[in-house]
């Protein structure tokens, strides 16, 4: 077991003792973060996770560290899986095996599945990490009698999803340790730098505030705007449309769960003049018109915008309730089945807001001088 193995409890002491020895591991970790190398050993990878933990387990740095980890081990996992899975653990993935002692990836013994290229099988519960990360759905898999049958690519992906999940848990446990070490802090800074350039790029591409363009709205939002019948109108207007319009206009690239409108704008006029009128008009088109027989729903709109139950909000109210985030497509399909009428661009999109941002980006590109 390596001295920095996650199974070894005394990480803090070990870091100090290994100071000299570890120089090359730190260098390796730095090169990995800078993208100068694409493979790194277990210890360097673990150092990157430890560094990320200084920023908190849900930080952008942690997400990047886990991405680095995932990419670094993906080749090894591929090789590991191609060999007979039953054979002794591949030496180089000792770290992975320590993280994941129990992935029961069996070769399927049925010739039918063999013929279909589905060489591997796992119990259905074992694909839950991939489901949880929203990458896959049960309906994507070939499931029978409690087993999910996988081809090689799916098996590798699944293994990586599980490893990433474990890495996330590791970062979380490290973040409770209160580690202080200048080289680790240096690595953490490198991660921050990387995350800054990445967010900048994303924000630069898609995240800027701009007036709403209805022609770029996804089908479900267009449906909301055209007005709904009595069954779906409350959800359509005061939940979905309200959340969509506000994020699309005010914070299209927000990914924090506890955002406030006042963090992004300093004039409530944006809400009053650009968002509310669309909501009012959509409500009017419902049958029966929503705000006529349920005037209280107006307050609900402001509530979902984070202003609490009110009908005349000010920016200072913007923390009285939480600013409801745009529900994912899955959730819309379940809670208001009639709203989801997907078109081509919806296929690779999991949230209506993403549709809007992509469409805006695509069209923007086309119209650019």
């Amino acid at each position, binding site marked *: 077991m390596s001295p920095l193995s996650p199974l070894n409890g005394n990480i803090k002491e070990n870091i100090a003792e290994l100071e000299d020895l570890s120089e090359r591991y730190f260098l390796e970790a730095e090169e990995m973060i800078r993208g100068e190398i694409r493979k790194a050993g277990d210890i360097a990878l673990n150092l990157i996770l430890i560094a990320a933990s200084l920023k908190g387990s849900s930080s952008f740095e942690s997400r990047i560290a886990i991405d680095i980890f995932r990419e670094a081990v993906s080749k090894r996992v591929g090789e590991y899986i191609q060999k007979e899975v039953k054979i002794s653990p591949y030496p180089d993935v000792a770290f992975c095996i320590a993280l994941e002692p129990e992935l029961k990836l069996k070769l399927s013994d049925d010739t039918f599945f063999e013929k*279909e290229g589905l060489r591997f099988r796992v*119990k*259905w*519960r074992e694909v*839950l990490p991939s*489901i*949880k990360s929203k990458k896959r*759905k*049960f*309906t*994507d*898999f*070939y*499931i*029978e*009698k*409690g*087993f999910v049958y996988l081809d090689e690519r799916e098996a590798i992906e699944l293994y990586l999803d599980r490893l990433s999940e474990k890495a996330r848990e590791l970062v979380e446990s490290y973040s409770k340790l209160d580690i202080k070490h200048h080289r680790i802090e240096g690595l953490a800074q490198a991660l921050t730098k990387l995350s800054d350039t990445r967010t900048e790029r994303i924000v630069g591409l898609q995240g800027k505030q701009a007036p709403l363009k209805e022609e770029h709205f996804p089908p479900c939002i267009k449906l909301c705007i055209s007005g709904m019948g009595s069954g779906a109108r409350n959800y359509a207007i005061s939940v979905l449309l309200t959340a969509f319009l506000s994020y699309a206009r005010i914070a299209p690239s927000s990914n924090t769960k506890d955002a406030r409108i006042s963090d992004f704008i300093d004039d409530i006029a944006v809400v009053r003049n650009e968002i509310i009128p669309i909501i009012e008009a959509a409500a009017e088109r419902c049958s029966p018109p929503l705000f006529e027989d349920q005037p209280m729903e107006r307050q609900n709109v402001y509530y979902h915008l984070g202003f609490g139950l009110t009908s005349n909000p000010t920016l200072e109210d913007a923390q009285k309730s939480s600013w409801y985030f745009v529900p994912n497509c*899955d*959730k819309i*399909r*379940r*809670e208001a*089945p*009639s709203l*989801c*009428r*997907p078109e081509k661009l919806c296929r690779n999109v999991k949230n209506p807001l993403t549709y809007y941002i992509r469409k805006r980006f695509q069209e923007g590109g086309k119209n650019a001088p």
Partner: protein
Amino acid sequence: MLLREATPEERRLYYFEEWKASYLPDYMTKSLTMREFAFDYNGEGPKDRYRNFVTLTQFEGHMVSSQPYAAYSSVAFYREPQKRSGWLSAELVFDIDAKDLPVRSCKCRKGDVCEVCMEEAKEFVLSISDTLRDIFSLKDIKFVYSGRGYHIRVFDEEVLTLSSQERAELLDYVAGNVVPERENLKGRYPELFIKKAIKILPLFTADVRKEFDQPTIRVHRLLKYLPDVLEDLENDSFRKLREILSNKTYLSLLETIREVNAGMVDARVTVDVKRILRIPGSLHSKVSMICTPVKNLESFDPFRDAVPKFVMER
């Protein structure tokens, strides 16, 4: 049969003369102390919540003395049920309500039920439980007639700790709430989706237009070619459908099938890991029927097996 509300006197008759604590199924008695109970005494909703019983006798006493309008218990098991805290696990539940079925072959209006739609709800329940058994290999599955539809309650170890989101994903599969991506229709899920389509398409009448976004003319066209379409589907092929419908209409039809599928099960019940459900054996006073544990679903007839004595004597 008249599904009218039970009077307080009829409730008294039911709990004094007919109901027994032994109506409670094993899966309830075994976990009695870990469940939250809730009661509705006057038809205004379950306002008496956070109830907990230590013994069966205590529970029996409460039912007989309060003769509730409706009685519920949690699908969740708690360390401290009286506080609804210390959540340990929860049954996996599917709620199929005949009165809310999006398509039915009877003439019932929204909110009503009859023998025909009750039977259709039952068929849907059977198809869900088949999927749970064959695909997910779940074995400990119980059925309860809820008064206007059915509850499927699953107790297998591997589902008890599923999160709300994981339950939602499982529901998407078993209900058929995803249009299959793959164009080749091999694979268990596309098969399942087609099976559901075969059941649903014949129920498409011109009325469907009102509920779903399908112009009448397309529905008529579809109905005209229905036998061919169905035969095609039996062979796992959407060829005929593609032939008679434009690409856009074809996709929109698949979406409509998905939408109907989704409407068959109440998703809010499945994803709520702290939900309360009617207690098997208790009286559904609004319709004067017994919420009944079902041993053999295929032969179960609610209008014979879930009717309290006082209704027979009305």
